[in-house]
Structure formats: C-alpha cells, structure tokens
C-alpha cells in the first residue's frame, strides 16, 4: 500500500486529472471531507493535506509521496525526490508592483510575500536590497495599499493584477505542481513508483 498525499486547494483538481489520465485514482472522488481515502484495488491510500504541510509529511514518511507546488517546495524543501512536474495548472512566480520598473541599483525597498526564504535567495542576487515582510494571503494588497513597494507572488492569469492596476514587473520562476517522493520510500517501493511515473509520462500529463 502506497500512501499518496493530495494537496487541498487549487492543485487538487489538476492532480486528480493527471492521475486519472494515467489510469490511477479512478475511483477517487476528491475525498470530500474525509482525511484518508483507501483505494484497495490500486494499492493506494490518499490523504488530504494543506500545501504547506505536505512536504513535511512526505519527508517523515507518513506519506510515501505527494503532489505539491514548486513554490511551496522552494520554500520548505525537505530533501525530497522530484521525479516529474504536472503540465496542467502551471503558473509563475513574479515581482508585482504599481510601476513597471524594478527598484534602482542601491535602492532599499519593502517586499511583501508568502515566500520569505525564496525571496531572500532571489534578492541576494540583486543590486538592490529589501526588507522582507511575510504575509499569509492577499499579497497583492501590499503594493496596492503601499504596505510594500513590491510583492513576490504567484500569478496565474494576471487578471486580478490588471483589474487592480498592478503590474507583473518580472517573472522569476515557473511554478508547477510536482510529484515528490520520500527517499526511503523510493528505495522500498521503487517498482510501483516508477510504474506510476511511467504511466504519468505515457499519458503526457507530466514533464
């Protein structure tokens, strides 16, 4: 029995669609309110976790594998294996502001984000400095209402930004939902996990 951690929220539908295309999780209804779902025919048990908790559960082997956004992974990487990334539901991580330009060389700005570690790494390579303000949601509001000059956040279509007169100034990374696997589990269940990955690749739902 392989325990697969499914993400709550925006990545759940794309994950289920990808696994179903690969002939897995056919009988899974998304789980509803149940925390654990067993699919004995597939030899799978799924659990439903919030994105930010998922890498920790996989690292500790409570789940053997899971699907989580690369945005979360770059923030709380727990030395997990990342064999494939889902093609659907891709978005981008970008700097957002009210103007079109990045800060000038030597400038010190305030940067609002849900991803302080990632932001720190990116800013370290820039000619300007930033005071990083960690927010837990509605990050776009920070530049809009001048809590910060810049925001670093996920952009999907850019529609919300446009409606609020905000500008996606620079894209720093593509964000994808990633299949992550516990190192010890990969050794133990290599044949099954490789079969899953082969099927996901054959269904052309991952890259």
């Amino acid at each position, binding site marked *: 029995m392989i325990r697969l951690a499914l993400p709550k929220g925006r990545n759940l539908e794309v994950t289920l669609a990808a696994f179903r295309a690969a002939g897995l999780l056919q009988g899974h209804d998304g789980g509803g309110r149940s925390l654990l779902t067993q699919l004995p025919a597939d030899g799978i048990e799924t659990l439903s976790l919030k994105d930010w908790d998922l890498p920790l559960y996989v690292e500790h082997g409570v789940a053997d594998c899971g699907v989580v956004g690369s945005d979360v992974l770059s923030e709380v990487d*727990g030395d997990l294996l990342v064999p494939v990334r889902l093609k659907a539901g891709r978005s981008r991580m970008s700097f957002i502001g009210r103007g079109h330009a990045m800060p000038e060389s030597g400038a010190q700005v305030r940067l609002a984000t849900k991803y302080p570690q990632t932001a720190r790494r990116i800013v370290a390579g820039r000619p300007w400095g930033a005071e990083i303000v960690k927010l837990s949601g509605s990050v776009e509001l920070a530049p809009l209402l001048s809590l910060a000059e810049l925001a670093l956040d996920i952009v999907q279509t850019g529609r919300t930004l446009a409606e609020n007169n905000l500008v996606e100034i620079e894209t720093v990374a593509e964000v994808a939902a990633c299949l992550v696997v516990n190192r*010890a589990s990969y050794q133990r269940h290599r044949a099954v996990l490789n079969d899953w990955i082969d099927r996901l690749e054959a269904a052309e739902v991952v890259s």
Partner: protein
Amino acid sequence: MRVSAALPIGVAALLFESARRRRMAEGRLTEMLEKAGYGEAILPILDYVEPYEALLTAASRSELYRFIDRDGEELALRGDFTPMLARLLAPRLTALALPLRVFYRGDVIRYVEERAGRQRELYQVGAELLGVPSEPGQAAEREVLRLFLAALAAGGSAGGGEIQVVLGFAGALDGLLLGSGADPVGLAAAVARRERGVVRTACPALLPVVETGLPHRPEDLGPGAAGTLADLLALRDELAAGFPAVRLAVDLAEFARHSLDPRLSVDAGERSYYDGIVFHAFAGAAALPVGGGGRYDSLFRRLGAELPAVGFSISLERLLEAGATREVRP
C-alpha cells in the same frame, strides 16, 4: 523564582525510560564493536578550528558552532568525529601499529535550520578501520559494512523497524555528468532528486541511473567506474546473503553529488570527504538516514599523512525513533 524547563532549539533532555533505552542501545552497540576488536577513543567536545580549515566546505563550515575562546583562539564544538579522529591520528601514525580499529561515541553539534525531526545535537556511535586499502578484494569495505549492518540491527533491536542500506561510490557518475555538455553541478543535483525531465534532456544515459540506480550498461560509466561497480555489486550480493533481514541496494543516483572531480565539487549536505565506497541506511519510514559511512583515504592525505580509511557512524536517537514509530504505518 520559578524557572522554565525550555531548552534551546534542536536539543533534548532524555529522562528515565528514554535515557535507559538509549543507554541500552549504546551498550549493545559498543559491546559488539569491542568484541569485533575495535578499541575506544574518547574525543573532546571542543577543538581548534584551524586544523580543519583545509577540510571545511561552505556547507560544513555553516554547520559549525564556532567562537573565540577567552585567550583569543578560534574554537568549534565537535560537528563530526571522523575528521577529528583523523587530525589527531595523522601526526602520530609512525608510532601506531596498523591496521587500527577505533570506535567512538558521543555528541556532535551541528547548526541546522529549525525543522521537525532535525536535531542540532546528535548522539553518535561510530567505528573506523584505518590502514587497509581497498585493493585487493575490498577487505576493509567488507568488514566495515558487515559491522555497520550488525550495528544497525543491534542498536535498533529495541524497536525493530525495517532497515534499508543504499550503496554507491564517489565519482561513479563523474564521467557522464562532465561529458553531458550541461552544467554538471546542476545535473548532479537533478540526478540526486531524480528529476526525469531534466536528466532525459541533458544526458539520456543517466536516465536508467535515475530510475533504477544503475546504468543501462556499466561501460557507460567509463572503464574504471565500470569495474568498481562490478565489485560493489558482488559485495552487495555477498552481504545480502549474510543479512537477509536488511534490504541492500546499489543506487548510484543517491550519491550523485559525491564526486571526485574538482569541477563537480558541490556542497552536498552529507559528509563530502568520502572518495571510495559510500553508503547510508534508512530505518523505518523517515527520509533522513540513521547512519552512513564510506572510504576516505584522501582525508588523511590532506592532513599530510598516507592512510587508507573506511568508517561509519550511526545516530542513535534517529535509529531508536525509527523503531518506535514503526507501528504507526500499516
């Protein structure tokens, strides 16, 4: 005045039953090492930083707790036993009868980011076999691995828990990584994370290594590495017959960042001085190894001595925790 019982991040106090469990595991392990002919070395918790300067990587330096002593000397808390033992033995080699079999036990203190399951103080028991080269016949590797497997079983027998040992060797993939035309350091990281897409594009010959741990054809690794792989597979089969309860696998992707080429020198999280066989063990479900080791002949060379060496260490709390948490999984 009421005082708080809170401790700094990453350390723990073991009281009563948990202390008894660890002492018992330690006792079983050290008794086994003594019976195997290994003599104990008790090493200090504090040492100068200076003797280690040539050995430190950016990663191992950032793990060290360093400070200036009252007399102005730069000191560090012990973060690793192997280099400490090496630097103490290197100047004394002429007076020592080889081969030398040494074991140690004690704390290592390493700074790691606060995260569940990552302790900054780890209690280790380890052993080193010094003075036996790899050739002929991998006698030292065989002895140390047998001891490592027996020690895992002895240390963890309070809780049990399935043990998996993964074997590889440093530099196994250097030829493929450097010959790919892609950034070899980035590619080594992608192999270690088993990122199929990146590896398929950059170096298709590495794809089977990512998927199965082994190349499609051993010759793909180059003539030297192909021979080393054949020897390692034979050693794996021999050990597997002797330890049926342990899962033993050769997986070169697991050690993709252990390189022998300076162009590939990266700050891998694990000890970076291994230059021959390298291995680690998982117990239970957790992804953090409970122990590991390898051959490190060049460590002594960098300290001005010629001494072939193989060793291992086991983190006792991790091993005991793996046994204790096993029952949670179906």
